[in-house]
């Protein structure tokens, strides 16, 4: 029973927050922020499986995010594909692309992998900018609303619940994975590739699994954001977005499921709160991030957790 709480406690907390929040706040503005946090958390959760657990960096995941987003924009607009099918197609395409690119790219390590994934992300974003016939080019394009069983999904509340429930499921799957032979293999690769190999772990296969899974998480998040916003631009898939995902994961805590959500929440909510600083908003944001990284080096959640463990209770 104790192990049940240790394993699923985080998922239950996330579920409780998702359910409780709408009772605490009533304004649709806050629900909109909540939905954005959940959507970004999804992508960051994927990045964290790749970076925090398998120890492989990617600076190009906005590319997969963009594939999800453009799938639900392009396919319904130009090919009359229902949005929900477009979403599934986008996720599958992102997963397949990750599978194909991942094989050669994941042979690289450290900085080389970072640069290669960076290039991958930029290439994908370039396709969205240049295929103006389908994507509207640099201006982007509107995204038709999602329709489910005749219900037009729109508005902050609807997307709050859709993204919230998806996040809980995604966290559940991630927690399941981590406490399994696959999860142990990923963490082992992070600490010692050579020891993993001599224990029979097919290192290339597990890196690829983490890469594909993280691409799928990113694509779902991208599709949600596009459907929620009703607009998609190349910036959706841009380099800065990739950096943002990585920053959220590092800030919240690499290797921490809950940290992914905290990181995403912080970097989504903080800029909203810092608007009081007007022109100095970005300076304040940067300063706060630096302070967090200096004092909570392992990321917010893991650092605080170890702090609580050490303090005499």
């Amino acid at each position, binding site marked *: 029973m104790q192990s049940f709480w240790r394993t699923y406690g985080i998922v239950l907390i996330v579920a409780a927050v998702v359910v409780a929040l709408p009772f605490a706040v009533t304004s649709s503005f806050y629900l909109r922020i909540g939905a954005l946090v959940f959507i970004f958390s999804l992508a960051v959760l994927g990045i964290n499986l790749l970076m925090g657990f398998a120890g492989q960096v990617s600076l190009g995941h906005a590319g997969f995010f963009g594939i999800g987003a453009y799938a639900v924009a392009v396919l319904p607009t130009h090919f009359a594909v229902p949005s929900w099918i477009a979403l599934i197609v986008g996720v599958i395409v992102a997963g397949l692309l990750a599978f194909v690119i991942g094989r050669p790219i994941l042979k690289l390590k450290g900085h080389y992998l970072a640069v290669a994934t960076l290039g991958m992300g930029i290439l994908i974003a370039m396709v969205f900018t240049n295929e103006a016939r389908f994507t509207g080019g640099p201006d982007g394009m509107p995204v038709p609303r999602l329709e489910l069983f005749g219900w037009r999904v729109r508005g902050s509340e609807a997307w709050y619940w859709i993204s919230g429930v998806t996040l809980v499921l995604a966290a559940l799957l991630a927690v399941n994975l981590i406490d*399994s032979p696959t999860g142990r293999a990923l963490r082992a690769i992070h*600490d*010692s590739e050579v020891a*993993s*190999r*001599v224990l*029979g*772990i097919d290192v290339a296969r597990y890196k690829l699994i983490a890469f594909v899974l993280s691409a799928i998480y990113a694509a779902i998040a991208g599709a949600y954001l596009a459907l929620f916003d009703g607009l998609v631009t190349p910036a959706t898939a841009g380099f800065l977005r990739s950096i943002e995902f990585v920053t959220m994961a590092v800030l919240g805590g690499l290797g921490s499921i809950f940290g992914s959500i905290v990181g995403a929440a912080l970097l989504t909510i903080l800029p909203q709160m810092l608007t009081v600083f007007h022109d100095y908003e970005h300076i304040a944001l940067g300063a706060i991030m630096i302070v967090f990284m200096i004092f909570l080096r392992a990321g917010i959640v893991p650092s605080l957790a170890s702090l609580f463990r050490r303090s005499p209770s």
Partner: protein
Amino acid sequence: MSALATHGIGIDFGGVRAVDDVSFSVKRGEIFAIIGPNGAGKNTLFNMISGLYQAPRGKVMLEGRDVTNLPAHVLAQRGLSRTFQNLQVFFRMTALENVMVGRHLHENRNVLAHLFRLPSVVAQNRASRKRAEGLLALVGLSEIGHRPAGELPYGALKRLEIARALAAEPKVLLLDEPAAGCNAVETAEVDAVIQKIAAQGITVILVEHDMKLVMKISNRIHVLDQGRTLAEGTAAEVRSNPAVVAAYLGAHAGGEAANAGR
């Protein structure tokens, strides 16, 4: 049929023959030691056998099958496991989880089953945990299974690596300086563990500098010097071999003479 054999194996590093034309054959259940002065090529030899280095010359046979230059993870499937001199522990995982990773080859590796935590995965996790606990007990680390490996003392990590390698249920186990950095008590524990492993019918090949340990537990000893085979035989034979005394023990004797002079 030998459990593990090499035929004329060799490798060069920048013109230096690190290992040259080394052949040996280890019988099943034997404890076989490879010794030699620093730089004799023991580690390089181990790395070629375990698939971490590609051997440009010679062959490695595992249970009669040619396994030369197979990737390390495939060799592990064929029943070869090893430990590392310069510890390759999974420092962020607990001691128990380290050993559970060793169960990898004997676990179902279907990722979808893992994602959805099918009942079979739960049962398997439990079985792996139990097995890992048993192995930690075997190497005398029962009490510290829950602790992160990064917090454990050196001697414990040495034995943790042995437990982890055993979890893979190898037929042949390569131990890379299992007693290095261990005090007398820890060395005695390592000694006992190796004997227990061999008693289970697992073939043990070890590289070790602790001559007392090597002479005591090895069935046979293979002596390397500058990448080449110098001698092979039982402890008594090796000890009385003049070439070995000159090249290997001679160096030690010189060191002792220097110490005596102080």
